[in-house]
């Protein structure tokens, strides 16, 4: 086979991996949309905020240091030790102790960040959406735009606006085994980033866990009930408020996972919040209410935009990745407005 075919395949695989990222963000959207009908524009910013918080905790940044310094004329920025180093074993520790220290140094900040996302979910529900029950969808949507910009500013104020590296010890660089094996088999070595492979595995685990949770747990059953009919859910004793805090929490934790993956790959920076916009066409494709749809939609968009750029990009002057996803979504909207997996909307006339 000619190298072009292999190269296209490789492009496609890389596209799939990028698609995993979109899918992760889209997943957070779907969860909230299904349970509350709110289109959460802030999902991407939540990923950013989670990643910022995680870096801050790992590195021992003092939160709100700019503000503190401006008010008190101090010059604080870091604690003597970040959580990563706090748990690190001293010189000469045994292999096991050192390993344990490294794991705790990552795991504890990750869990703390998850806790922060849960508190955020609670605050968002308590301070904003509780007061907007029964409002038109466009109003709820506007509220999430407000939330997105607030959270962006708040993250900035809390942790600073500089680009930060996020290292939680995930493997990076080209997967050499894959390259060697494919080289031996096809005479063409595929270049796939280890981090992308990890992201794909994590996303798969996340989706399976979420599916099991929603199918077999008590909360999962309540969650599906709320997604289906609010009145009926109330009548069987489900607190809508509780369920909404729950889904925002889950969406926050999904955002954390997306933030970790994206941050490890490209650094934690404000452009991270822009992937939220790519989740939009993903949702158009997959349907707003389908978890499998979010995944498949993400993969199709990721793959499609890379392949399109590869084949058509050179003919039209490149940079097709900026618009391809949206145009594809537009085509889908025209021919299948409910998305690939969404329920068909039949208007009774």
């Amino acid at each position, binding site marked *: 086979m000619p190298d072009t075919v292999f190269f296209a395949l490789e492009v496609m695989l890389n596209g799939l991996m990028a698609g995993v990222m979109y899918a992760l963000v889209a997943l957070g959207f779907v969860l909230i949309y299904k349970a509350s009908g709110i289109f959460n524009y802030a999902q991407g910013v939540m990923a950013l905020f989670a990643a910022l918080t995680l870096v801050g905790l790992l590195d021992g940044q003092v939160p709100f240091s700019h503000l503190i310094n401006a008010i008190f004329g101090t010059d604080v920025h870091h604690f003597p030790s970040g959580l990563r180093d706090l748990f690190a074993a001293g010189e000469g520790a045994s292999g096991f102790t050192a390993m344990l220290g490294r794991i705790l140094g990552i795991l504890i900040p990750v869990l703390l960040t998850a806790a922060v996302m849960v508190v955020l979910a609670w605050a968002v529900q308590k301070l904003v959406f509780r007061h907007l029950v029964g409002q038109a969808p466009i109003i709820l949507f506007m509220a999430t735009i407000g939330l997105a910009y607030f959270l962006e500013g708040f993250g900035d104020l809390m942790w600073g606006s500089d680009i930060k590296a996020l290292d939680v010890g995930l493997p990076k660089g080209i997967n050499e085994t894959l390259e060697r094996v494919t080289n031996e088999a096809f005479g063409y070595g595929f270049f796939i980033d280890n981090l992308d492979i990890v992201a794909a595995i994590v996303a798969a685990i996340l989706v399976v866990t979420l599916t099991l949770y929603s199918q077999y747990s*008590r909360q999962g059953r*309540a969650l599906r*009930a709320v997604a289906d*009919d609010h*009145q009926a859910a*109330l*009548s*069987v*004793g489900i607190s809508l408020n509780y369920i909404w805090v729950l889904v925002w929490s889950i969406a926050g934790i999904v955002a954390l996972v997306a933030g970790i993956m994206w941050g490890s790959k490209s650094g934690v920076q404000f452009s991270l919040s822009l992937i939220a916009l790519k989740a939009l066409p993903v949702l158009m494709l997959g349907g707003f209410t389908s978890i499998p749809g979010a995944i498949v939609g993400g993969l199709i968009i990721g793959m499609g935009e890379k392949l399109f750029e590869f084949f058509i990009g050179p003919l039209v002057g490149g940079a097709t990745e900026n618009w391809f996803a949206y145009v594809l979504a537009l085509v889908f909207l025209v021919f299948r407005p409910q998305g690939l997996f969404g329920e068909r909307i039949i208007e009774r006339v």
Partner: protein
Amino acid sequence: MNAETPVEAIPTADDRKIGPVLMEMKHITLRFGGVKAITDISFDIREGEIRSIIGPNGAGKSSMLNVISGFYVPQEGEVWFRGARRPQMKPYQVARQGIARTFQNIALFDGMSVLDNIMTGRLTLMKTGLAAQSLWWGKAQREETEHREKVEKIIDFLEIQAIRKTPVGRLPYGLKKRVELARALAAEPMLLLLDEPMAGMNVEEKEDMCRFILDVNDEFGTTICLIEHDMGVVMDLSDRVVVMDYGKKIGDGTPDEVRGNQAVIDAYLGVAHD
């Protein structure tokens, strides 16, 4: 009920089942903007009885049921439950107190199977939370099994074995009504509120539903508050009847008393025979 009744005496049906006051509505007034849906209505529901609310369309029957179940908050009046004044509650809190209901316009979880729908009725009775559920998987499984057994009994009782796994959205109207009743029963409620459970059914379906309602009341001793349009059905089923018209109470008593009440004949029966 009567303390002096000799032990060997066979109690009448009413003596056997009617207990003390379970729920009391005191001077309830409910307004929607300028519209008065309920005007200063008081009545009580006693343990073990079938208490019906009747009246022409728009009389305020559903509104009253919504006040009892916490969906509507009255501007005036008090709700007393089990001898204590009930503070203002959200519908889900009312449900957790042991008050289950069905809706006039059916509110089911269309995407879920019949079985899953009925299982949601048991959410208020499930003890194991998420943390415990993940830590003690075995215990949670045991609890789930127990709930499943109860639900299967209700499914047998309402004769809907054949549709256990069917998504509710695909069922015909009459069966949906039955599933909704099943879900309410699954909560093992102290008080069951039924809003026109037989509306839109054919004669056969109505007869089945009547039988189920009587059996629920008889076998489980569940107190039932029933809204129904069909006068014949109401008179057959009910122990006591409240009659409403234009948001006001115009009659209250046993079916016989209500039937003889001139205001009721004028307002309700007159309208019904138009």
